[in-house]
């Protein structure tokens, strides 16, 4: 199979393979714009710069046509109708619009919302805000493998529950929730279903009908499109209403005002179409790389722990904890690869990942976790270099670690009375 590459349009040289930069394995944080996508965006910054809301001349019509084509492309990717797509600045805004907008509209019916402890902050922080406004939110626990317990989920539904929000594919551990079952339960109980499908789109099939979603958030920059663009799907049949959160010229049928960024929208549309086209080929190739990475690490490094289900997981993600090494020093040692860690070491808080804590992982293991995000442009050579680096650096840090020495001597670390400090 041909290795996809990012080629600079002018120099025709590959852009991502650069020995002076770390190997990029953080595709769940963001992705580069696919050159095929970029090419389609560029004319809308210069030649076709019109405002899609200008109804009286050709500049506006050209922009509007481009926006509507993209709306169709995103709708097709979600198996939705284009009239159900609302452009936003990204998935964070889409989720704010979905949860606040629906909560405000339906607050007369009830004030209870259900979500999971392992959701993205866009959902969790929006729920916190709704709590401050008088709504009540249940943050459900997940099981050790990151999956929702459907019985506990159904049991959490109350007569006054109006919305449930569930992350389709988790951004840290790549775990896929049983969305069809969740959708069925919610439809039975007449509870609105919001889905954060940011990490699902382009990785696995996303179909708003199959999962009976009422609202769905997606983002451009996770699917090889530009940053600063996203969309909210809002179901028309049966009709779902959301109150606008941004007011102005009444764009997007009044749900989200603001001049539409044509080039971004064109990029999102093109990226969505390409993501669906390439989904199977990408997933197959990436899955092989992920398995190679996992095997390489497990063959070379003892005492590693996979976080989250391997069975119900997208192939693009691997999340592993390395016991007996500390997370921040691990990230420091791995400066030649760009990855995310479960340790929020860049902040002063030193809080370990709340997602891994929700799986019941200890602080130590949560801190020493690494998220490998594999993507369209990852090469086998990069995976092999990563295995080498991980094996070498973890080995070096363990040489330094008194805990590793104690482990090798057979001392149970839990049997020791550590002084708190």
């Amino acid at each position, binding site marked *: 199979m041909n290795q996809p590459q990012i080629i600079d349009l002018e120099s025709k040289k590959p852009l991502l393979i650069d020995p002076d930069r770390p190997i990029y394995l953080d595709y769940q944080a963001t992705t580069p714009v696919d050159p095929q996508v970029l090419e389609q965006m560029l004319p809308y910054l210069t030649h076709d710069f019109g405002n899609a809301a200008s109804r009286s001349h050709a500049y506006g019509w050209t922009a509007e046509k481009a926006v509507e084509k993209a709306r169709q492309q995103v709708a097709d990717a979600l198996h939705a109708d284009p009239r159900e797509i609302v452009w936003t600045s990204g998935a964070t805004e889409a989720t704010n619009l979905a949860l606040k907008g629906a909560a405000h509209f339906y607050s007369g019916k009830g004030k209870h919302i259900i979500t999971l402890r392992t959701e993205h902050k866009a959902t969790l922080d929006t729920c916190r805000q709704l709590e401050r406004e008088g709504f009540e939110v249940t943050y459900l626990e997940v099981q050790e493998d990151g999956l929702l317990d459907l019985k506990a989920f159904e049991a959490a539904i109350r007569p006054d529950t109006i919305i449930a929000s569930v992350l389709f594919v988790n951004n840290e551990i790549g775990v896929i929730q049983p969305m069809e079952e969740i959708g069925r339960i919610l439809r039975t109980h007449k509870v609105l279903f919001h889905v954060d499908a940011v990490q699902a789109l382009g990785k696995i099939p996303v179909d708003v009908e199959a999962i009976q979603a009422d609202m769905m958030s997606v983002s451009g920059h996770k699917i090889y499109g530009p940053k600063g663009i996203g969309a909210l799907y809002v179901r028309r049949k049966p009709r779902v209403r959301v109150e606008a959160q941004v007011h102005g010229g009444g764009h997007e049928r009044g749900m989200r005002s603001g001049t539409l960024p044509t080039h971004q929208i064109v990029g999102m549309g093109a990226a969505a179409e390409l993501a669906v086209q390439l989904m199977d080929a990408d997933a197959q190739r990436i899955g092989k790389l992920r398995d190679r990475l996992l095997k390489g690490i497990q063959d070379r490094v003892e005492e590693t722990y996979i976080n989250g289900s391997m069975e119900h997981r997208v192939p693009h993600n691997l999340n592993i904890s390395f016991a007996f090494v500390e997370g921040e*020093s691990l990230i420091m040692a791995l400066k030649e690869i760009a990855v995310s860690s479960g340790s929020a070491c860049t902040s002063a808080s*030193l809080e370990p990942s709340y997602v891994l804590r929700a799986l019941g992982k200890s602080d*130590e293991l949560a*801190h020493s976790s690494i998220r490998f995000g594999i993507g369209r442009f990852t090469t086998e050579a990069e995976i092999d270099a990563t295995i080498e680096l991980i094996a070498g650096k973890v080995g070096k840090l363990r040489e330094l*670690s*008194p805990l590793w*020495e104690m482990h090798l001597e057979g001392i149970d*670390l839990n049997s020791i009375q*550590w002084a708190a*400090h």
Partner: protein
Amino acid sequence: MAYSEKVIDHYENPRNVGAMDKDDSGVGTGMVGAPACGDVMRLQIKVNEQGIIEDAKFKTYGCGSAIASSSLVTEWVKGKTLDEAMTIKNSHIAEELELPPVKIHCSVLAEDAIKAAVEDYRSKQGAGHSHAEVAAAQVAH
């Protein structure tokens, strides 16, 4: 997080990594910190008949600053008497390594590790040093 060049140097080329026989009466071992807090330091000193620290070894589980703090301390205690070693303060360590405020606790831990190692050595030697003296040293920070 931006690290000072000194932290990076100690982190990449840690000095005196290793272990000594903790049952040797001439060796003092201090282990401080806790895994759940993200750092555990073990400092060991070998003291000769003149009461001089002639060798020091460490192992540390912790961030780059914790590794650097303990590595630095092994260099500093060598050649010192126990009383001299006890005068090393966390502020000296933090200053030398240019630690940012969020990493000051690493230097505090390194100071604690010296005290714990000295205390362990003295308690093994038994006579000559009262517990009160050790306790006084401990409350000094």
